[in-house]
């Protein structure tokens, strides 16, 4: 299937019902439909409202600290001995990850919609922290749902959320991870739909979320495009980003989508290896289905039950993926690959040692694949990797794996 990705085609992706080809849509129970329709209508209006855009841009500049630098990782490049590796430094954003770009945007929407309460789901805790942060600033009540297992492995972020005034609710149903946190957030929303805004952290969920999260995160790719042109006088040859739900990847990819010569690589969590079944790589090893309000690639068994996933990184430990990625995969515009726990951990150590930059374990998956890819490319070629978050939150996990007891 070949789709010409010109501006006209892209303007209709997603279509008015939120479909990216066969993916996306709005598969939720009836109670939520009116809220989704209201959100869509308000978003379409505000998106073109100069006041809203100005406020968003101002917050990104003065509160988040944008633009984030595009850093030439000279030492990593030399070590690998191939294409030039640039890092888009989303780890330098306020709160330490790309997630805040989206929560700033959605909290503004909540404000314009007059909703005094926000809820969020979180895996690694980055989106939870970013939501709690904007809630503190805007004086909104904030409840964050987090899988009980993730509460354990991301204790630092749980405490950060509490310091920010948010209530963290551990979710003990199902597999006790991100997917169950999302189920619980949807249950909260259906119950408190009148006064509550649900800040979804990734480019998944029912329409219009995949679209609006993509739009808010696209600042990453817009900046990277200009910065690469400034530094290299041309566009990059390849983009690399990790994919859990896929918001940092979508944010980097989207502004390059019409540039057919820019290759895109989304790196999924290979866990213990794709052949073991213990991973979180629906695009590499799953099939299309319906979960959490959208049709997309999923990890499911033959009976359509969603499978437990595994990844070293809580933020990638999710059985679904944003519907636009599913579409980009099918039409061949983006490539989806995987990196194992071991490869990600090794990349974590390498980047820390050679560049003095400690990446989040999520982003370490992208670093791992970029190193592999750079080695296969020419020295005059350029790769931009989205360094989506910083690794402080993962120190416990890394120490445990290295057999060190921190506290």
């Amino acid at each position, binding site marked *: 299937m070949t789709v010409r990705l010109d501006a006209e085609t892209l303007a209709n992706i997603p279509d008015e019902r939120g479909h990216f080809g066969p993916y996306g849509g709005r598969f939720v129970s*009836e109670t939520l439909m009116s809220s989704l329709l209201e959100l869509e209508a308000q978003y379409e209006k505000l998106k073109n409202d100069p006041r809203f855009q100005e406020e968003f841009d101002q917050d990104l500049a003065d509160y988040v600290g944008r633009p984030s630098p595009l850093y030439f990782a000279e030492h990593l490049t030399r070590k690998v001995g191939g294409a030039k590796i640039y890092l888009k430094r989303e780890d330098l954003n306020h709160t330490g990850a790309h997630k805040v770009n989206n929560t700033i945007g959605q909290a503004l929407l909540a404000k314009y919609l007059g909703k005094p309460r926000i809820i969020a789901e979180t895996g690694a805790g980055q989106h939870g922290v970013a939501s709690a942060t904007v809630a503190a600033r805007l004086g909104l009540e904030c409840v964050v749902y987090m899988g009980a297992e993730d509460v354990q492995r991301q204790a630092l972020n749980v405490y950060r959320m509490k310091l920010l005034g948010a209530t963290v609710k551990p979710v003990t149903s199902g597999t006790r991870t991100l997917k169950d946190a999302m189920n619980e957030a949807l249950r909260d929303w259906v119950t408190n739909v009148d006064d509550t805004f649900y800040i979804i952290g990734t480019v998944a969920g029912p329409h219009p979320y995949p679209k609006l999260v993509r739009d808010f995160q696209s600042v990453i790719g817009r900046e990277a495009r200009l910065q690469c042109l400034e530094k290299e006088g041309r566009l990059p040859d390849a983009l690399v980003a990790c994919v859990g739900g896929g918001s940092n990847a979508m944010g980097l990819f989207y502004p390059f989508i019409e540039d057919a010569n820019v290759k895109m690589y989304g790196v999924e969590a290979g866990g213990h290896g794709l052949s073991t079944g213990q991973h979180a790589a629906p695009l590499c090893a799953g099939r299309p289905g319906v979960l959490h309000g959208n049709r997309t690639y999923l990890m499911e068994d033959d009976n359509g039950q969603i499978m437990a996933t595994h990844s070293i990184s809580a933020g990638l430990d999710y059985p679904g993926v944003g519907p636009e990625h599913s579409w980009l995969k099918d039409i061949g515009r983006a490539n989806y690959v995987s990196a194992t726990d071991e490869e990600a951990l090794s990349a974590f150590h390498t980047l820390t040692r050679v560049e003095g930059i400690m990446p989040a374990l999520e982003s370490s998956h992208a670093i791992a694949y970029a190193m592999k890819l750079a080695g296969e490319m020419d020295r005059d070629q350029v790769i931009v990797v989205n360094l989506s978050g910083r690794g402080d939150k993962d120190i416990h996990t890394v120490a445990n794996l290295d057999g060190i007891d921190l506290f």
Partner: protein
Amino acid sequence: MSRITSCLSALKDAGKAALIPYVTAGDPNPSATVGIMHTLVEAGADIIELGVPFSDPMADGPVIQLACERALEHGTSLRDVLNMVAEFREKDQKTPVVLMGYLNPVEAMGMDHFIEKAKQAGVDGVLTVDLPPEEADEVVPVFREAGLDAIFLLAPTTTNERIKSAVAHGSGYIYYVSLKGVTGSSALNIEDVSQQLTRIRSLTDMPVGVGFGIKDAESAAAVSKVADGVIVGSALVNTIAENADSSESMHEKVKSLIGSMRSAMDQ
């Protein structure tokens, strides 16, 4: 006329509301389900909603989530559920059976294959919680052709425009979700329900079943005064869970809960 439509119209002629219990198939174990279905009918059920267990029941509260988990621990699949319906039909050709669940297990089986097998098994209607009318354009005609009723949900938040769309797509009955929340939520407000039903009835003649928040004979009786059908789920599933250790007392308690609702509704 479908089995559901003729059942509801006969009740209407008799001046009665339908009692529609929900149980999760495979809970507490797969071999118990058909027996429970027969007990429900004996106790006065008119239509049975049989839940298809799903790993991620987003619209359900803790009671039905746990029922799904128990059923899935026993490996209950959609195919198993269809076999249960077929077994139920060996003794009962009269009581309509509606499958209620989420879209993914149906799609994993393949929609066309599912419809064919559901028809063969003796299923009468299908309610897919996460399939709103606008995503159902393609499947509704296939359901119609197979003689299966597609049942859609309405909620307190549903606009008049969407009511019209649900009615145009659906058949059999409309399931009105009495409150904003998940299954097993606190008690419904009968005044609100009554007002909403007046609004819905101004837009359609289709029978309306009301569910969510009906937990005992009293709430069932109150709802039966305003609705065509009374749907009871979590209270029943909870009764099954609490008595799962003894099949005998489970059937007794189920019979007593449903029986008390039946008599309160018919008074």
